């Protein structure tokens, strides 16, 4: 395992995740990890989200295949768990909605016939958490997102690639962060 470094779980709000559509591989190898590059330049192979599981549905035909919708202050994440995510699928089968959940998972993308890229999350683990953890996550994600927005002037190749692809205007994301933070103040 020499040289193996675990992929960090990035913190992305649902709005930014939904608006991401650029995937790339770090190398030509079939085993090279795949990344999703977000508008603020996060290079995502794994992400950590906490939000409210607001819907769940078994959309599988022969075997169970669960779809869930997890919302945060800015929008919602779609999550999909089937036979290859047995623990997550079992969790979704048994849990009640709505519920605060914490998810560690991999980003995945699907391109529709019209060419729209849809993003979703394939959970590695899901667990029930409390509202305090959810608030910590919003603040945590706000902080990391602000860091990325500040870094948008840097010469980091991922940042440059993100700006080329999504455009250099990031005002929507700083206001997204502000609104997410303000929503916390209303709760407390």
């Amino acid at each position, binding site marked *: 395992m*020499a*040289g193996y*470094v*675990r*992929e*960090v*779980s*990035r*913190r992305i709000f649902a709005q930014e995740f939904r608006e991401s559509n650029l995937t790339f591989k770090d190398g030509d190898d079939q085993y090279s990890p795949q990344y999703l590059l977000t508008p603020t330049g996060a290079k995502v192979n*794994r992400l*950590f989200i*906490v939000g409210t599981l607001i819907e769940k549905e078994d959309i599988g035909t022969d075997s169970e295949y669960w779809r869930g919708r997890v919302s945060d202050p800015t929008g919602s994440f779609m999550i999909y768990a089937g036979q290859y995510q047995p623990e997550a699928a079992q969790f979704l089968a048994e849990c009640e909605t709505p519920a605060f*959940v*914490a*998810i*560690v998972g991999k980003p995945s993308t699907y391109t529709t016939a019209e060419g729209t890229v849809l993003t979703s999350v394939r959970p*590695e*683990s*899901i*667990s029930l*958490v409390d509202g*305090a*953890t959810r*608030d*910590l*996550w919003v*603040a*945590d*994600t*706000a*902080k*990391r997102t*602000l860091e990325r*927005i*500040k870094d948008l002037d840097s010469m980091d190749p991922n940042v440059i690639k993100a700006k080329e692809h999504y455009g250099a205007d990031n005002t929507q994301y*700083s206001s997204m*962060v*502000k609104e997410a*933070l*303000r929503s*916390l*103040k209303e709760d*407390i």
Partner: protein
Amino acid sequence: MDKTAENIKNRFLELGVEIPIENITERLDKLVTKFKVPVDEARRSVIAYFLKEYNIDRNDFFTGQASTPLVKINEVNEGGKWVNIRGKVVQLWDSTHESVSQVGLIGDDTGTTKFIKWARDDVPDVQEGKNYQFNNVVINEWNGRFEITLNKNTVIEEISEDIDVASTALSSPGDGQPAPMVSVADITEDGKWISLKVRVSQLWDNTHESISQVGLIGDGTGTIKFIKWTSAGLPDIEEEKSYLFNNVVAQEWNDRFEVTLNKNSTIEELDEEVDIGTSSVTFSGVMVDVQSGSGLIKRCPTCNRALTKGACMEHGKVDGVYDLRIKAVLDDGNIAQEALLKRELAEQISDMTLDDAISMAADALDQGVVLDQMKLKLLGKYFIVTGSRMDRYILVDSIEQQAELSPETIDELISEAEVL
């Protein structure tokens, strides 16, 4: 690059093949300029291409070269080149791997350089202090430095001439000049000779007869593994005592650093006490994984190692002793940090005692339920740990769940967002 191309052309010419220089230059240029291949690698690749093209045996190309030049050691500065060298074996080091039969330093009046002799190549051994002519050795670039590799075509002749070796600026221990004193945290360069003031924190079971002692030493900045070779002939050191290690070598092994004590090293016991790892670290993050090997485990009663499938790596099948531990990954969005929690802390945060865990496992006829229970309890939650750093782990001394978000933190973040 033109020179490299010309060299290749000339070498092929000697084998009776004329390759237009443009063909060579073009290939080299494409690799180097367009595909950013290092020159040495490009040269190797170009040669391989033409060897195949003209159906020439590699060995014919690389050996039997009447023209292998005799070079001085300060001319050892072009990777991939075949040379002859006259030099004295200044030092033989302890080989760290069975595939290396001998490794050390050779020198002449212009300098010294490292050499490696591989076990597979069946070349006779050299002796420290003797002089030799090495024919057909290869210069290699390794971690930014040049060294000499012996191979199966190498011929070593002992010579009667006594070669004067230049005392060079290379980091070898000179007479009476101890290597520079550093802290454990500053050990970042492979192959560097250093001196350390440390305390022995652990002595481990010895795994090989060529090793006299192995364990963990540390100072205020951290801890590091050390190996004392039997051939070093040094006195034994004791746990919890502090020592001055002079002229030890920092080595990188599997991405980690360790220090080795060899026969040029000395050990002096210190009167002062060196404190280890007073610099404890704090890390806040989400527990994103509880790794396998966590939960209810069994340890070897003799050496305390965790058992795998009921067997100890060292002592074979043994009656293990139950223990509880957590190998966690904490993630703050920028770093994924591994953390080790021993029994008391594992019991505290997962809200079960070792006895609970044992009976839980007995009921389910499966140790795995304990790990599942821990995951359920811990994953996705924010923690703060403090502890000391060891390799890639934090050995945790205390762990707490993060406090609820305060209105002040929110205000700070909002004002940060507003200035953007």
